[in-house]
């Protein structure tokens, strides 16, 4: 093989190619560059991006390009340096990006009629665990240390219950704290009995098999977490921004709803209410992530 191209380099090449096309043309053409965060299968995301950007191009009236970044940090970096105009983003990374580079919230995802969701602490029904206090000295799996519903919000319930003093004191309360790498991994670890509890999104039990779903329950639910968003870099042309928002809101129309599966599969979008993210800003401060 003359050149070893693996998934990572392929992604970077896709990204670089989008940027190398976009950057020189940006000076002469108006276009929108969208940054996407990979899910489990980056290759599928590339196909989805092609489908949705094609539709957005016709709806917005300017060429819309998409590229995949390795993570949220890279997407925010792309917004900062102008390689991306718009990005899909979790609530926590958004409030950090807002503070760091002045990112602007445009749209929030809607699930089951609400632009918010919750985090829960799940346990096996036969575990005998009925309260947060029962988890003292027990092992727990969270999704990821910067996950809102898969760590920050569920852990805050332990603070609220007076069981731990603050986020940094979690290790003293639990036997072990694992970060499993995602909701599904955390839930599986709990369902299989590797750990006693899992902290994950309120919908995370749907990732288990039907039999496992019947075997698990939850013991506490966090306060509502504003849903994931679509954000823009500061200084993006206001007219272009509005046209993009209008196009995205047209995805709510019955004839366009199928296209939502190209975009992480929400039930729809609403215009973002920045104030709705105050709770996330407070949470980020409590965890020392935001000044």
């Amino acid at each position, binding site marked *: 093989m003359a050149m070893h*191209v*693996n*998934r*990572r380099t392929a992604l970077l090449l896709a990204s670089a190619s989008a940027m190398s096309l976009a950057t020189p043309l940006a000076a002469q053409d108006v276009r929108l560059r969208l940054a996407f965060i*990979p*899910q*489990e*299968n980056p*290759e*599928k995301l590339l*196909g989805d991006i092609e489908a949705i950007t094609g539709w957005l191009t016709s709806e917005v009236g300017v060429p819309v390009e998409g590229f995949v970044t*390795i*993570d*949220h*940090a890279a997407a925010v970096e792309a917004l900062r340096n102008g390689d991306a105009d718009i990005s899909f983003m*979790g609530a*926590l*990374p958004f409030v*950090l990006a807002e503070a760091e580079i002045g990112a602007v919230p445009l749209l929030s*995802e809607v*699930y089951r009629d609400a632009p918010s*969701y919750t985090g829960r602490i799940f346990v096996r029904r036969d575990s005998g665990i009925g309260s947060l206090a029962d988890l003292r000295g027990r092992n727990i*799996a969270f*999704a*990821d*240390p*910067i*996950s809102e519903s*898969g760590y920050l919000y569920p852990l805050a319930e332990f603070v609220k219950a007076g069981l731990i003093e603050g986020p940094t004191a979690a290790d003293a309360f639990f036997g072990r*704290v*694992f*970060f*499993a*790498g*995602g*909701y*599904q*991994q955390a839930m*599986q670890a709990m369902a*299989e*009995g*590797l750990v006693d509890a899992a902290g994950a*999104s309120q919908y*995370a039990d749907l*990732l288990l*098999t*039907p*039999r*496992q*779903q*019947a075997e698990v*329950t939850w013991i506490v639910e966090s306060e509502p977490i504003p*849903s994931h968003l679509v954000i823009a870099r500061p200084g993006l042309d206001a007219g272009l921004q509005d046209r993009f928002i209008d196009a995205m809101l047209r995805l709510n129309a019955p004839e366009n709803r199928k296209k939502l*599966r190209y975009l*992480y599969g*929400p*039930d729809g979008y609403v215009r973002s209410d920045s104030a709705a993210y105050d709770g996330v800003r407070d949470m*980020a401060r409590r965890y*020392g*992530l935001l000044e």
Partner: protein
Amino acid sequence: MIRNFLGVLLATLASVLVLSGPAAATPAKETPWLPEAGAYRLTLFLGNLEPLPWDDIETAWREPYRGSEFSIGALAWLDRESDIDAAQLLNAITHEDRQAVFAEATRLIALRIEEELNRAVAAEDPAHAQQAVRTARELYRAFADGIATAEPDVARQIGLAWLELNSSTGSAGVLGAGVTSADRDTMAAARRVISGYIAENYLIADFAPRQTLSALPETAILSGRAIEVPPSLPPGSDIFDQDPLPRLVLNFEEQGIDETDLPLVAYGDMLFDSAQIFGSPARDLGLACSTCHNRSDVNQRLFIPGASHQPGAIDVDGAFFNPIFNDRRSDPLDIPSLRGLRFTGPYGRDGRFASLRDFTRNVVVNEFGGAEPTPFMMDALVAYMLEFDFLPNSMLTPDGQLTESAPEAAQRGEAIFNTPFAGLGDRSCASCHMPDANFLDRQAHDIGSVAPAYEGARAGALDTPTLLGTAYTAPYFHDGSLPTLAAVVDWFDETKTLGLTEAERTDLTAYLQTVGAADEPYEAFDAENTAFGLAFAELTTFASTIDTLLPRRDVRHILLLTDTVAADLSADASTMSNLAARPDVYALAEKLAEVGTAVRDGDWAAAEASWSAFQTEADTIEARAF
């Protein structure tokens, strides 16, 4: 967070396990397989078929499995993602050396796990390390059920090692916030647990000969213990219900008779949805009559690699379901509709069974390896299936003539349908598809649609199929070789030299589409009238037969019912849109399971108390059962 947008959750009602598990007839959508892991699982599955489909095994590595999220096959994927050479594997496939294929494919997956683990520990940042860990773990999934079955304690240790490994990769944080560095020592220790086991069991030079290909670890094989890995379907399988769901037309129901007042029919309805009447693997995979015959019709999406040549087709006498009934011929059949079953005998594509009862027993016992059904079970199944009616079609009179509401083209086509042709032996289409006899003649004819199995074979006669409802059962012919009704018309025109003009073919097609149409072919669902609501009503109706069985102290049939319905009710709850009511449905399912437990214990008073509680709770939940 990064990978776990809420959308991922809702879009992927998924299991990380292989497609196996409870005998409930509610399949769980699988997490997609990585290309090489998917090819490996397909290899294990296909490698156990007899005769072994070597072409399919090669295809498994060269092309993406059916429904894969990856656009390229495993070999191309490996070329792009890995430095591992698949030449030895291809060589083994070329030489049709089953043991060598198993060995090479197993080592390849093991090497890929090691390759990704090497990348994880060498990664300079948490994001790349976690990506490599995730990939390694997805590859490990190809072995996971074998390890869990053979050595559950080891599986648990390795499960914890994966948790340790991922946790110790650190966190990239966001924009400098929340950054934690990797714990290299812990990573190395966790990796040693995983790699040590892989090296000992899957990365070895000489594997012991395998009677059955599976992901069981080598040490378990060498131990000589009898270990049975729960059956699973390979990547690319699809046993989900058709969407949209066909409408079920039951004769008694249309007359306003409640199924709960027909306990024999209701019990037969339950058996039709029960995987328990089959043997393994069908039973363990949750396959029931209704899996193929959705709501008395067909399941156009059903596909099992090695047993299906295309969606909606299945070879029920192949190697997979009941080896003793394996006819060693690859002859999958397009799944036939059971609508109007009492009018469509004899049964089987070639009409080989005059009796529906005999045909049904053959399906249960021979095709799917079930235990001999009791006379009561047979009576119930037949009683239920005899209620299947054709779909109402307002464009047809009861004697099969078109009504005025039929399109003009169909009216013209009706005349062609009734015209004798020399190519049809001076008969018309209507000679066999008799309009006043539900468009069939209950006879078998050789129309030349079956390729002779051997020289001089006279084995091509097939039972005339009805044309009613056929607008929704594509493809056509016994092997599903014709994709549309227009293709069927073309086939007859060409092979029987009918000499139809293009306009006549169009009109005849319009006629077939009109005859095959229905006023309401599919179930209509909305926010509260959901598929789960339908399932809930069905399952509680099934359970109503306990009213008949409990006084008779009919242990066997009560347990068959409670085992089926309690598991299905619990599994179906995972499809509810009213998530808040799920715990109530789980509790209801437990009540029914308690009836079964009490009957097993011979405690009839407790059984009656649990049954009474079930009925009360079912009534209170009904309004929220969506």
